[in-house]
């Protein structure tokens, strides 16, 4: 600043924390800017991933929290392939995202979920899952048996209440965290681009970036996996809405079963495939599946798999007229949904959809896109 003084505060712990959150190569970086220059996003955005890494090394917390560049990163790793220090910028950016998420969340749960060991997460998950089991196989057990004896499945019942409550609480927390993230991100920036133009920018950006990425084998593989998960989750949500609003829909067997099978199978493949690659990672596996093995990555996949399988089973049993089995699967499905929503959906890696949307919105409105 010419003729004035700009005060910035430094938090010397930031680099230690980001290191712990998976940014193991953070201190390797010597600021050459290769990562920014090779990144295909740089053609479209006024972005500097190097600067985000620099802020993190220095601990300029305010700047880190307002930095939207980590949220534009697709973790495709061109930077990691060409880093002259052998560091992994995309991995560092993922860690910065975890750090940002921790700070955006006022409840402090993200801090535990992102920062704790795998074992600690698993225990937390199992405790909540155990309580859900108690709920469904204890408290609700009689009514489940009663429903099973009706010979029908489609019911709007009190069974859904716990999941609904958890869901509403999670949404509220997400909304408040999203608002906090928005405040951090918009600070010191000027809204200078109109809404319609911004949306156009975002749309053309996605089409360009994704179609370019689809031309590269290992990126395509991951885009497909991610798309499967997106489709699966989208159908899940659609089915949930239909279940609550038009339960009759499930009497149209062909179409409803089709949707259910597609939703479950896409999810199982979309989640199972990267999970298997991580587990069986060998010589030929792309480094993405070996480097990005932070516990939150594992948990985001692991927590999603069982509800997907259970949903499938519910209808398989139902269509085989094994109604009591179907109800047990249903109770299990709900028991798995509770910890998924409460931990992963509200605080885990899955929150990135929200922060990404906010970051792109803020970016588009504040001239982050290079435009036409």
């Amino acid at each position: 600043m010419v003729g004035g003084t700009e005060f910035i505060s430094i938090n010397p712990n930031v680099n230690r924390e980001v290191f712990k959150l998976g940014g193991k190569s953070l201190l390797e970086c010597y600021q050459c800017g290769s990562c920014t220059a090779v990144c295909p996003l740089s053609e479209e955005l006024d972005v500097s991933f190097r600067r985000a890494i620099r802020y993190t090394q220095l601990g300029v917390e305010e700047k880190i929290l307002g930095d939207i560049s980590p949220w534009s990163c697709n973790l495709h790793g061109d930077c990691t392939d060409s880093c002259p220090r052998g560091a992994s910028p995309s991995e560092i950016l993922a860690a910065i995202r975890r750090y940002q998420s921790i700070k955006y969340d006022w409840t402090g749960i993200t801090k535990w979920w992102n920062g704790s060991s795998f074992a600690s997460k698993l225990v937390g998950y199992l405790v909540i899952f155990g309580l859900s089991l108690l709920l469904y196989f204890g408290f609700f057990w009689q009514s489940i048996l009663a429903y099973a004896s009706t010979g029908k499945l489609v019911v709007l019942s009190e069974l859904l209440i716990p999941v609904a409550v958890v869901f509403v609480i999670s949404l509220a927390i997400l909304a408040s965290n999203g608002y906090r993230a928005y405040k951090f991100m918009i600070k010191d920036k000027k809204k200078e681009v109109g809404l319609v133009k911004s949306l156009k920018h975002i749309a053309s950006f996605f089409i360009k970036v994704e179609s370019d990425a689809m031309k590269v084998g290992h990126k395509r593989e991951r885009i497909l996996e991610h798309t499967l998960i997106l489709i699966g989750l989208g159908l899940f949500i659609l089915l949930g809405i239909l279940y609550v609003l038009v339960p009759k829909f499930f009497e149209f067997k062909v179409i409803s079963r089709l949707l259910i099978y597609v939703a479950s199978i896409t999810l199982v493949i979309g989640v199972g495939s990267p999970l298997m690659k991580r587990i069986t990672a060998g010589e030929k596996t792309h480094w993405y599946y070996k480097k990005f093995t932070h516990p939150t990555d594992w948990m985001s996949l692991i927590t999603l798999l069982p509800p997907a399988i259970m949903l499938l089973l519910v209808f398989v049993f139902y269509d085989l007229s094994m109604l009591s089995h179907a109800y047990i699967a249903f109770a299990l499905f709900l028991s798995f949904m509770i910890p998924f929503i409460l931990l992963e959906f509200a605080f885990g890696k899955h929150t990135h959809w929200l922060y990404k949307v906010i970051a792109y919105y803020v970016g588009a409105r504040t001239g982050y896109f290079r435009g036409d």
Partner: protein
Amino acid sequence: MSSVLIVGGGVAGIQAALDLAEQGIDVYIVDKAPSVGGKMAYLDKTFPTLDCASCILAPKMAALLRYPNIKLIMNSEVQDVSGRAGNFKVKILKKPTYVDWSKCNGCGVCTEKCPTKVPNEYNMGLSQRRAIYIMFPQAVPKRAIIDAEHCMRLNPPPKAKEKAKGPLCGVCERNCPTKAIRYDQQPEILELNVSAVIVATGMELYDPRNLPELGYGKYQNVYTNLEFERLVSATGPTNGEIVRKSDGKHPKKIAWIQCVGSRDIRFNHYCSAYCCMAATKQAILAKEHLPEVQCTVYYMDIRAFGKGFNEFLERAKKEFGINYIRGKVVRIDEIPETKNLKIVYEDTAESYMKADEYDMVVLSVAITPNSKLPLPVELTKDGFIQLKDPYLDPVSTTVEGIFVVGAVAGAKDIPDSVTEASAAAARAALIAKRFSCPTPEVVK
């Protein structure tokens, strides 16, 4: 008096030889090239003073010839070294030059008559020489040598060989005024006894083709800095005129790209030490040749550590208007119509990716040590020769009596190479004198 072997006759080897010879010690210089001089002989001017390189080097090279106790064993390589300090047995492979150097007087008639043209290594392939040639005009010793691979007589093309009845060509033999041509010369093995060895084999440029994204070898107007050094040199392929390979025109904008292959764990993790100053020097030279040209140096860090270096850098910026931009260049794209080059990097001052267009790009290439030698010395993991003690004994190797100087010990510039050379000469002289025994010649 016992003797010292110097492997490599670059500026470091030359300096060590002169210091030893002046003390009356016998010196052998073995160099694989046909002339001494090393990389410095390729340079136009030197940083940080912009002195003419050959004006400094040529007198030193010529001085070698004035000492009867310096023997130049050119076009040769060491094959084996055994024994220990005070008494090393050295085997040297002397490759044929196909010219009797005791007869050749360097007149150069053969190099004009020879009909076969091949790319001239001394000008980095930017000009041509003949199959019989003198390495460069100031060569020491100034003697002709036949490049057997390209010589019509020694390696005739199979078809021509079938047709011809007798031996082919023979133009140089017919024209040599001193009758020095020897097509039947054979390799020789020389055996020497020396008290000490000084390794001064210097460095080679790292092949920038290992970084295909920079397009060297593919794009015509991308040069290495050594090529550029020849291009600006008055003795170079264009007599010092800076022109583009693609269209022979003067460039209007030239970019230097630093750390090509240096400070990068994928290639060489060390800093090559000479390139920041060399690029600054070359940008100044470009400005001196073409005052209108815009020069920009793309760097990660400028390492102007030596005496007078920072002042040199300031001068480049203020007096010559050389532009410095901080950011590592990750890619060069050629624009097919103009053969101009677009370089892609993050401007780290402004924090976003930029692509700038230039009509000539010079790569400041890493160096690698010439250390694959049949000597019992140890190497560092980067391939430089391991020093015994980098603090207190920085010219000794791990073997007593074998010393190392110049760029093969670690990337460095000329002043540092020469300093080490004098230091090693003093050390080698101590050993040579300790083990000297009066030979009959001396008694008489």
